């Protein structure tokens, strides 16, 4: 499945390559039902920051919300991914809670993201 993801990324990369994608600011995203995975991502290309990303993957089973929570823990990285494979084949919703610690200002900020589809935001998936 990982190879399929990379192949899809390469195809899409050829269609919408943007050399400046994600270089100017931190952005946060969730994606659901990506034919084999769900995820929440925090990223900025070329910069290492303290991130912690939590992702809720929810699937209704007979009207009962089932699923799991992912927690990356706090880590210094350019790309914090709460990613889970072997799911996301339809009917899932993803809610991400993204934390960023600004070690210059000494400040934490949070952003919530939601998704029920696998929209492509060019940039993070091709790195």
């Amino acid at each position, binding site marked *: 499945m990982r190879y399929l993801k990379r192949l899809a990324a390469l195809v899409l990369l050829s269609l919408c390559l943007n050399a400046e994608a994600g270089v100017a600011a931190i952005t946060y*995203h969730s994606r659901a039902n990506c034919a084999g995975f769900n995820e929440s991502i925090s990223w900025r290309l070329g910069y290492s920051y303290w991130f912690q990303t939590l992702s*809720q993957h929810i699937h209704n089973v007979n009207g009962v919300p089932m*699923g799991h929570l992912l927690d990356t823990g706090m880590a210094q990285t350019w790309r914090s991914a709460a990613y889970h494979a072997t799911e996301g084949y339809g009917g899932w919703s993803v809610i991400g809670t993204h934390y960023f610690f600004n070690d210059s200002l000494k400040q934490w*900020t949070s952003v919530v993201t939601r998704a029920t589809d696998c929209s492509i935001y060019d940039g993070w998936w091709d790195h």
Partner: protein
Amino acid sequence: MLKNILFNALLFSPLLSNASDSIDATGTQAMKQLIQDQGLPPPDSGIVIKPESQFPNFELIKESIERDNASVKKYGYIKRKSPEVQSLLNFKKGEKKFSPKNLTATADTGLYRSINDIQMAYRYYGVPASAMTNELAVAPAGTYLQGQGWTGAAQTFEKAGLGICNYNEMNAKLNHGSVLVARENVSYDINGKVTQKYAKGEESEGFIYGVGWYDDTIYHELECVQTAFSPETMQAVVNLAVVIDNNAH
């Protein structure tokens, strides 16, 4: 280390503990409990001020915070290299590839020529034209809300006397955001709002001057770079932040 909570043999567990619980815009009760247990600021909790020692994951950042505090006491700034310094000082070098105007298509996180080229989910306030010498680029920030647009954006611009600056504005309401700031680093310099500021860098590479200020709706951050350190530059950046904030009403 990625942790998978509520993992069981079937991978999935009920996410609500009883029928009266619900999944709202920010998620499940289980997630809210996890956030609370870790001391992280909950979504939609606004501006929270705490001592640094009560920050989440404090054991991971304690050494860095103590080193920075000692550095500020000795030099007046955080003596530490910052990739943002070179990035902004060299922003005008090399050709930039700008994304085309994109008001309806799937989000693109690249650089744009103008805020008017980005689909925004709210009326972006930004830096007034009268407060900059030359706008260089704009980029989306925050997250993209389907059918609405971006919840934030960053403007890179030149300001005579201050050099290259970057202003980042995020809509806290649309982000269901929160901000947790260190009590030790709080002032009210920007129109009486909770404000934080810093200078960081090294003499060999230059300095970045940053100001963050917050209200119920917008979280703002302004950064400018200079080759030398001076308290007067810090004050000039604060003065520019006041002008930007006056425009956000």
